[in-house]
């Protein structure tokens, strides 16, 4: 059976005399629980930050920057999904609807009450968080696939409501908004400034994910993911933690939704329906939900793949599907896991050459 052993905390370094197949198993194992050295983490973070900040100056053109913005706000939403799935183990295939709640809340506030970007943002994020918590209520009763199907229903229901909402939600045509209210000296009509706005939000989301993942709260969530009964029996308030992480996830989704709204300037129900939701689930699985950069990797792959391979939309969707199948079969932890395993294997190999012991990478 080509299924790989997936127990977390496997050492990355291959012991001496392993067969090729075992080596493959090590490469495809899920290494999320193995911490990387602080130095490596810091270097990766700095390199990534420099690359992302320098991106608009690399002269890659308008189209590239537009895709980059799309990638980044999608990644913000994915960090919410990554948190609830990667840390707490609660998958959702209705996440785009949660982004839609934020986007529509902001758009309706803008159309009805004349709120701008900055004033509507906190309301939209709060509403997304609340809705995230309310949709999450069934997780306390049903688990796993039942909950996934509930989220899918919610997503479909959301689109029906938006489509039948008359002028309030703009029906099938949707709503339009103006541009982001300029800050002193910064006009967000300029594409690169819009990029930096989204990038700042992404850094927020990344830091929040890092902090939560390394906090007591994050450890508690992982305990619930691994064994809910056990977590409950040692006195963890499982229900509260689950709803908490879903609300945090909603907060991220709201932020992503508002950024999407003000980047596109126009939203319609199809942006938040079943398909976008499924793609969000694909991206987070593709990248690896348990890895800090997993969601970002997933978003980059899915958004840039058609561009790089120069595929038309139909072929690119077939390509997504095939990628997804391959990742699930060969690399259940996602591309993030693959990169980390390669790093661990290389490091293990170097140590062996240097005469060192096969330490944990």
């Amino acid at each position: 059976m080509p299924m790989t052993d997936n127990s977390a905390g496997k050492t990355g370094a291959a012991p001496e005399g392993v067969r090729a197949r075992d080596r493959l198993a090590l490469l495809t194992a899920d290494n999320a629980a193995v911490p990387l050295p602080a130095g490596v983490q810091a270097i990766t973070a700095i390199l990534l930050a420099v690359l992302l900040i320098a991106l608009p100056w690399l002269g890659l053109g308008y189209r590239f920057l537009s895709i980059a913005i799309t990638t980044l706000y999608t990644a913000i939403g994915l960090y919410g999904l990554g948190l609830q799935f990667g840390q707490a183990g609660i998958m959702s295939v209705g996440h785009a609807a949660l982004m839609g709640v934020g986007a529509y809340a902001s758009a309706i506030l803008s159309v009805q009450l004349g709120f701008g970007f900055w004033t509507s943002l906190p309301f939209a994020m709060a509403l997304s968080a609340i809705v995230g918590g309310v949709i999450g209520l069934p997780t306390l009763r049903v688990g796993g696939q039942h909950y996934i199907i509930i989220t899918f229903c919610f997503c479909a229901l959301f689109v029906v409501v938006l489509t039948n909402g008359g002028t309030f939600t703009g029906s099938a045509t949707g709503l339009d908004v103006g541009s982001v209210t300029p800050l002193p000296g910064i006009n967000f009509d300029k594409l690169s400034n819009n990029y930096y706005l989204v990038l700042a939000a992404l850094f927020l989301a990344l830091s929040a994910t890092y902090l939560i993942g390394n906090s007591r709260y994050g450890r508690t969530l992982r305990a619930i993911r691994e064994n809910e009964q056990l977590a409950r029996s040692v006195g963890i308030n499982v229900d509260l933690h689950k709803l908490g992480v879903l609300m945090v996830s909603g907060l991220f989704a709201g932020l992503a939704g508002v950024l999407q709204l003000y980047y596109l300037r126009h939203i319609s129900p199809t942006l938040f329906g079943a398909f976008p939701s499924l793609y969000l689930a694909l991206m987070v699985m593709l990248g690896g939900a348990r890895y800090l950069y997993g969601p970002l990797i997933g978003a980059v792959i899915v958004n840039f793949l058609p561009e790089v391979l120069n595929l038309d939309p139909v072929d690119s969707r077939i390509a997504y599907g095939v990628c997804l199948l391959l990742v699930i079969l060969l690399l259940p932890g996602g591309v993030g896991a693959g990169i980390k395993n390669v790093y661990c294997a290389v490091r293990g190999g170097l140590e062996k050459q240097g005469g060192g012991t096969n330490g944990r990478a």
Partner: protein
Amino acid sequence: MDIFVQQLVNSLSVASVTILIGIGITLIFGLAGIVNFAHGEFLMVGGMATWFMVGAGMNFFVALVFAGLLVGALGFAAERCLFRFTLNRPMNGFIMSIGLSVILQHAVIRVFNEFQKSITDPVGLVWTIGGVDVTAMRAIVVAITAVIVAITYFGISRSRYGMALRASVSDRDTAELMGIPVRRYVTGVFIYGSLLAGIGGALMISLFPITPFTGSVIIIRGFAVSLIGGLGNVGGAVVGGLVLGLVDGLSAGYGYPEWTDAYSLVVMILILVLRPQGLLGGTLGPKAS
């Protein structure tokens, strides 16, 4: 009153297709433990294959059999190449099935195109019974569904294969020790469910036009039907299909047609939250992970 009866008769034929897909899902999800989100695409592929074969001059009923076999083979391939590797991690299987559904949908668009396809009524008769017009094809659809439901129901509840299957669901290890080839049963159930999807697709295209996106619309109704009735419960799927078909048919005729989709979704969410085991009870499906 005539209009009411007319609506009822029409809803029944719509419910038949829903029941066929619901039975497939209830068996695959409840008994084989696989959440196959691509099941709707299997149905769509069956419909498209029928359209192609009828277009090439084949008789509809022959095409129906071929569509069933084709989709059964597709199910066999999917189970062998994909789902058997994720049997002990149902969540991964679920995500993979989403990938498969995306592939199938766009492969059909690539081979044909994204426009809707329809065939002319293969029978073309209309019977008038007591002032109610009954299209013969609709009656045939209901009859075929009834036969399939009966075969499946008695197969699961009475035959020794059905008993072995139920035994492997309730206690897999013991069943294996008793010499039941559980894996082969899982494959068998998957193929049978896929075959039903193929036939359902063929019947569907005889009633309405379908597009490559029909699958993703109908899949959620299939899950609704199987969950409303209780997973693995064939009788439950029939009840669920009838409830949903009638709600849809009647709300389209009366009430607010633009909210038709919402009714079934709300019913489904409520049942999932309040009675996760379904109205008639069933297995709770594969252990949630």
